[in-house]
């Protein structure tokens, strides 16, 4: 009996080994498809409908399906897309745009001025929970003049209106398929009709977005035959899928140590280009001790930008000396000018002396572990180390989950971490958003001089004068110190060796133009 049982066990073992061998020798379905690009991301799509889309991961989906009158089809320079151009009135309050002729939606419907007006009216009527409509807060009304002319009437002079036309708030949708007063469900792909190079053929929430080619596309044909975006909850799982060949590429977002590890792998290529994501420290300028300008100055003198960039982020970010990232017109390294490129202990001591506070001064810095990546903990540990080492400060770090943190910000915290991804890649978005009176983070900063510069910048009629005002705003921001910028992230994608064209899309516009990628 015992012998028979052992024999049965042996047979079972051999059978299991045989199954394992078959599994081992059979390639599981990977990215071995002809011409279809399979991308991985750790992002989450909230809303695909442009009327309620206000996050980068949903934007990356929309970019393939929809287009605006303006956009960034090649590089970081704003260009007309569905328009051939726009002209403005002398007071910059009326913008008249001529539409491109012969553009069709992916279902064959012609794109006309009626669709453009419908799209803008729809965003303002729906006022979606994600808040994209706030980008159109200066729009009074939209009118049409014939099939190919659209006129935007604004409440105030707005020199960067064409940039707004490039955002999701300005994406043109087919008035026959999008309901006027409600958001289209993400899975309703039959009605998700735009003029972009791809058509969304299938969307499975938190799993996958599948795109086919738009046969009615008016522009150059994409360099691939389709696109699949696969969603992952963890970058480590995505990294494994990439290493196993299940993905052709992955974009957004690996941890810095994962990128460093993949740079050493022979089968993968790490692509890096200009980025526009920034990280900064915000002060509530009304709350002690940060209501003391000299205390803020001392922190600015001690900010360990280089250490954070090299030690925490392994060179995947660059030190940032302005709220405006490098690569955008009008940028100036204001903080380098005012506080120097390297930490300066002597000047920090002088600032604290002028502050008339007892040192080491106890301060609390807040950060969040659930919105800006795992490296945030190390980032703030480095800032704490640098400030404590000066013996001028005694730093306490506190953290909160994003859902709690985002509701508190300046209302409850004195100094806190924030990051920024632009609504549109222009210096205006990186200055007005932070320095205007009543900014979103409730930090109490208000400056008549700054508000005056903002008004002048928005009413500037030439790029040269606009950039001049933007530089003045950055310098004033560095002196008043409602915020301290410290790094600018690069745009990073990782791909298999046979994938081509990724470098053509890594620029300060921060658009992943999948249509330029092939394999």
């Amino acid at each position: 009996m015992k012998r028979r049982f052992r024999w049965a066990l042996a047979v079972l073992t051999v059978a299991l080994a045989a199954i394992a061998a078959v599994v081992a020798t059979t390639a599981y379905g990977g990215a071995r498809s002809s011409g279809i690009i399979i991308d991985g991301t750790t992002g989450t799509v909230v809303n695909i409908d442009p009327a309620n889309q206000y996050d980068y991961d949903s934007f990356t989906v929309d970019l393939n399906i929809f287009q605006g009158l303006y956009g960034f089809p090649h590089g970081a320079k704003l260009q007309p897309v569905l328009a051939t151009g726009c002209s403005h009135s002398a007071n910059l309050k009326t913008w008249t745009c001529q539409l491109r002729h012969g553009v069709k939606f992916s279902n064959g419907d012609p794109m006309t001025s009626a669709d453009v007006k419908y799209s803008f009216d729809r965003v303002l009527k729906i006022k979606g929970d994600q808040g994209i409509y706030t980008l159109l807060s200066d729009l009074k009304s939209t009118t049409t003049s014939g099939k190919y002319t659209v006129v935007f009437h604004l409440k105030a002079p707005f020199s960067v209106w064409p940039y707004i036309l490039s955002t999701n708030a300005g994406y043109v949708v087919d008035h026959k398929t999008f309901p006027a007063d409600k958001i289209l469900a993400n899975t309703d792909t039959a009605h998700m009709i735009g003029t972009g190079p791809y058509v969304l053929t299938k969307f499975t929430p938190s799993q996958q977005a599948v795109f086919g080619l738009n046969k009615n596309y008016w522009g150059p044909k994409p360099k691939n035959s389709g696109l699949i975006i696969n969603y992952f909850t963890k970058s480590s799982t995505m990294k494994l899928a990439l290493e196993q060949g299940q993905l052709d590429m992955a974009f957004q977002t690996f941890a810095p140590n994962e990128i460093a590890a993949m740079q050493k792998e022979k089968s993968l290529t790490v692509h890096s280009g200009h980025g526009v994501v920034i990280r900064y420290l915000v002060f509530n300028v009304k709350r002690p001790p940060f209501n003391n300008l000299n205390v803020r100055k001392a922190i600015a003198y001690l900010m360990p930008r280089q250490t954070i960039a090299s030690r925490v982020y392994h060179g995947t970010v660059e030190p940032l000396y302005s709220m405006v990232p490098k690569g955008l017109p009008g940028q100036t390294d204001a903080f380098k000018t005012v506080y120097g490129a390297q930490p300066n202990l002597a000047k920090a001591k002088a600032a604290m002396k002028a502050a008339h506070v007892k040192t080491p001064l106890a301060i609390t810095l807040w950060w969040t572990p659930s919105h800006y990546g795992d490296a945030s903990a190390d980032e703030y540990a480095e800032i704490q180390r640098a400030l404590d080492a000066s013996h001028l400060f005694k730093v306490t770090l506190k953290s909160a989950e994003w859902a709690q943190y985002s509701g508190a910000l300046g209302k409850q915290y004195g100094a806190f971490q924030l990051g920024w991804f632009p609504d549109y890649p222009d210096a205006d978005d990186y200055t007005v958003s932070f320095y205007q009176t009543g900014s979103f983070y409730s930090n109490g900063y208000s400056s008549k001089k700054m508000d005056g510069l903002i008004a002048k910048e928005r009413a500037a009629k030439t790029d040269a004068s606009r950039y001049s005002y933007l530089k003045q705003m950055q310098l004033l921001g560095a002196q008043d110190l409602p915020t301290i910028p410290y790094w600018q992230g690069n745009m990073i994608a990782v791909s298999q060796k046979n994938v081509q064209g990724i470098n053509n899309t890594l620029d300060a516009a921060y658009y992943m133009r999948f249509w330029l990628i092939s394999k």
Partner: protein
Amino acid sequence: MTGTSLRTYLITRLALVVPMVLILLTLVFLLLRVAPGNPIEAALGGHVPPSVVKPIEHRLGFDKPILTQYGEYLWNIVRGNFGTTITDNRPLSQIIAQNGAATLELTFFAMLIAIVVGVLIGLVAGRYRDTPIDIGGRLFGVFVYATPPFFLGLMAQLVFGVWLGWLPTSDQASPLTQALLQTHTNIYFVDAIWDGNWGALWDVVQHLILPASTLGLITAGVFIRLTRVNVIRTLRDDYIEAARARGIVERRVVFSHAFKNALVPVITVVGLNLAILLGGAVLTEETFNWPGIGHELVLYLQDRDYTAVQGIMIVFALVVVAVSVLVDFLNAFVDPRIRY
């Protein structure tokens, strides 16, 4: 109370479900409201001013008194209206149909693995008590039971995905299979068979092996110990001795008499372990990027999406309560001594 009829017992058991579910619903509601932050702040905070956030919160009723919100919440559930998620406007019914199906697929195969591995090792260990086979089986049982699912999952990914390269380490199927497979039931295993798509079926099976084994092995630990103990106890029973005395061959005594009877209590525990399996499924789904309902729960929790989290928790609670009631019913039918 032993004289109570079976019908009375069943009615009492069903009636107890109502307060049980009500307590669960209340706890879920309160825990979410006690946690700081709300879905609108989570979505909009950090890029729009409070003046924009407040009207949206008002429109969604987040500024209503907590009792009013609770009343509306219960009323919606009574009407079977689980609502639409706040963050991405997704009907709860869709989450249950799509992601629930993925969880069902995972837990079904995990349970299958748990039963096969657990019962087999338990039987062998019990039969060869105090031999190296028994010690090995027991150690294995303790190890898999004590190991957290995410750790076992990570080890499985490392060994079979990275070092050996035998198996995929994430998702329900490869990207192309997911894109091309027609979904009839959202259970990919069934859908692939439905369409006779054998290539897809093989792909789905390969993707199932690591997550189902991880989840299954953890539950198998319980079955190993239970089966082993029952086999040892049964082999000592008088009727086994009597069978041997009658000259019945040992193989028949063990397989036909001892093993069959030893498995009866295991069947009860299989049902009760479903709750443990669902809890483990949340962690396993996270580890393997398995698009199940637990995976969605984690995502919506991060966004403080009240509607989604409440809906998913209700589904979890109802499944566990239903299975527990079913097990009680079966036990009551099988064992007449069980009555209130």
